[in-house]
């Protein structure tokens, strides 16, 4: 199993018992166990759509291909799979923390991707830093898991967190599906507008997973420091004392509450993860409890 992500075979085997939860009906691109807005193959024909890599070849309309010289997929109103897009924060801040926040973020992304693949869903991966990308187009089938994991492993961790770049996802003309954003959410950029775009224009069921390091949740430094932001280089002079630590905690709570409340108001799931959490604990307890997975 993948050594960089630290996923052991027992964990992967347990992941096969999970499925990602769609709180609303979605239109998938292939047959699957999920009730789709589109008709399934077992019922009656609903529509054609353009073939995408990873689609089931059995549903390609070869007659249409012969006439149009293009691949079209027959869509039925029936049980359908769905496209799960995982946005992984690739900014420099994810490389920080003890352990690094980016490691847990990639582990969670890899687990959720495997869950999707094991349940016949299509999985797409997108890095998000100071731009949207790199992007792995939708893949389906358990056999694509190594490719997906490798892509996740190779995601860089540089630049600033610009969550407003998520809005560029509309350019991919995505099918309705699930969108999972894994980020520390520590950015002054306008993440709300981009989330609204994902949710509305892109018709994604959005879940937000905020990953913070223990140092950010419970700072243990003391004294006079010039704090340098790893992403922007911005310096902040602080004299850390109990008073300032209290104000920091208030700021952390306020920020978390702000994000969580906003997500709740817009029908999005939100979870805060500590980077020192065990991956199986996160997947099988926290995410299940929050309804991201079942």
């Amino acid at each position, binding site marked *: 199993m993948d050594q960089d992500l630290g996923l052991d075979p027992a964990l992967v085997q347990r992941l096969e018992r999970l499925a990602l939860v769609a709180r609303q009906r979605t239109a998938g691109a292939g047959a699957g166990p999920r009730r789709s807005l589109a008709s399934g193959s077992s019922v009656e024909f609903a529509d054609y759509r353009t073939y995408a890599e990873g689609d089931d070849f059995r549903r390609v309309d070869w007659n249409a291909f012969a006439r149009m010289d293009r691949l079209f997929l027959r869509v039925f109103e029936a049980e359908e799979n769905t496209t799960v897009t995982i946005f992984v924060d690739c900014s420099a801040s994810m490389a920080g923390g003890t352990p690094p*926040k980016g490691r847990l973020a990639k582990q969670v992304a890899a687990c959720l991707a495997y869950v999707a693949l094991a349940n016949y869903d299509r999985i797409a991966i997108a890095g998000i830093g100071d731009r949207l990308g790199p992007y792995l187009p939708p893949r389906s089938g358990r056999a694509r898991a190594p490719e997906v994991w490798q892509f996740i492993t190779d995601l860089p961790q540089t630049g600033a967190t610009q969550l407003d770049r998520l809005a560029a996802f509309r350019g991919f003309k995505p099918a309705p599906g699930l969108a999972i954003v894994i980020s520390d959410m520590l*950015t002054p950029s306008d993440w709300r507008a981009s989330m609204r775009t994902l949710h509305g224009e892109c018709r994604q069921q959005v879940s937000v997973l905020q990953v913070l390091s223990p140092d950010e949740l419970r700072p243990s430094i003391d004294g006079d420091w010039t704090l*340098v932001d790893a992403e922007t280089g911005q310096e902040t002079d602080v004299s850390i004392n109990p008073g*300032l630590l209290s104000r920091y905690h208030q700021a952390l709570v306020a920020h978390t509450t702000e994000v969580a409340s906003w997500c709740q108001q817009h029908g999005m799931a939100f979870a805060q993860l500590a980077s020192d959490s065990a991956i199986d604990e996160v997947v099988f307890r926290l995410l299940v409890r929050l309804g991201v997975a079942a």
Partner: protein
Amino acid sequence: MNVFAPSAIAFAAVGLAVLAQYFLKLRRPRKTLPSTYLWARAVVDTRANTPWQRLRAEPLLLLQLLAVVVIVFALMRPYVLRAGTIGSNVVLVLDASLTTQTVEKGHSRFDLEVAKAHAIVDGMPPDKSVSVIRLDGRPRVLLAGSTDKGDVDATLAGQKPGFEQPDTPAALNLALALASQGGAAKALVILLRSAATPVPPHNTSVPIQDIVFGSPASPNLGIDSLVAQSQPNGAINALYRVINNGSVKLDSDVELRADGKLEAVDHIAVPAGSYVLHSTTFLAKGASVIEARLSGADSLTADNTTWSVVNQQSHSKILVVTAGNVFLSSVLSALSDFDVATVDPQHYSPALASGSDLVIFDQVVPRILPPADLLLIDPPGDVLGIHTGGDRTADALELGDDPNGLLRFVTLADIHVFMARVASVPDWAHVALRDRTGPLLLEGTTSNGATGLRCAVILFDLRQSDLPLARDFPILISNLLSWLAPDSSIDQATVHPGDFVHITLPADTSVATVRAPDGTQLTLVSAASDQQGGQVTFTNTDTPGVYTVTVVAGAVRRQELFVVTPQIAPGSLSASASAIQSGGSAIVAKTGQVPVELTGGIAMAALLVLAAEWFVAMRLR
């Protein structure tokens, strides 16, 4: 409350440094975090990039500033005056200047000072060390560190007030030096002074107890600055100044006497705190001493009389040894203040020079020089350590080292020397005039077998220059003679008490005496003295009046006079105690009170503040 060390307030500048620590941002270690987003939200106030920040009234800042204030206060060494016993080392400064003779309510200020000093000494424990300093024009230690009260009382009883102006700074320096020997903390200086004696500001750690006697409002008229000049017709012009140091307008008759005979009386009215200059003329042909005296009685009588010397007769004798020098003869004959005799070198003998104040050798050097001041012109041989050689041509003249002003008012550009004599410069001589090659005029004081004989040497023949034709030639000769043969043996005809008088004696002086106004006589030179001629310094000018100097030189007996007059500056009698108050840093204590230093308690308070600051700092962390 007062302080011993007010200058320590300069340490308050440390408070600015403390404030600066709060204004300026600290130089902090850097730490890179994944994101400072939350920290920036927590410390919004410190996000500005300016090197200073808004000052906030933090407890630490307030405590640190309080600590600075308390520590600076402790460094200033505050004290309070309390009744108690004085230290173990006491220095009594006894004012004996002129104004202590002021009599008020039947007692002079000096008598009151002495009585107070006796009382202080009598009230002291037996182990106390006492020093006594006399404060007048020349403060001096009368008694140093005595524990014997009998010695102290005897010393005090032997003092009388003088006529000098006080030199208070010198007396206080002397007292503080004595006091510091036993440790400043245990010392006390007690200044017993007239109200007219000013006290300058004094920075010292030794406490000074200032006891003032007299009233600034005491009525007093004083007379000084008498200048009298005789006219050819026998008239005397007298100009004098009358000073009113009291607080009300006063008037008085001024009697003018010539050699003790009353010649004129003026009536003078002087406004309070002011003075009047008055001039009068009267006939007193041949008088030598003019006396001006206030006839009215006031609180200070010592300044009611002054004197001036007129018709001082003193002609110096000059012997010129020359084969003939028309230029020199002409200019000497024009100077009427000298008795000039001329002799050919072939007829010269040392006996001829006896009694001469100055001997001029023109192009001749005798085998034995006379014990008199000398002017040597173009000496043809070695003399007085000067090694002479042949002639040399001279070029442009340059002014050299002329301490006696021989070339004063002489324009060198108008003088040209063609030939000069090659000569060395002895140790005693200054080169007053020179060209680029060598000396042209030497001056200095040499022994020549006696002490203090003045000598000038012109190292060229006057006829080898245009000097005798120059308009400044008489000036040069006058300068030379004024220095070599002054017309009076006394440098000042009028001095103040305590001043020195320099008396120049002829080389063959056998007897020189000075008779003081009280009739006492001091012998300066006698037959048994080593010194026969030269300059002597007379220092016993303590008593105002007329002093007579008698000099017997050879067969000649001469008498000259000088006078010692009290000096009173306008307003000096009422100088009062305000001087010490305005001093600020001087320590003022009333009788029976001693300063108690509070530094210890304040240092304890500083420690408490620092402990509180440390406690708060730990709590904030």
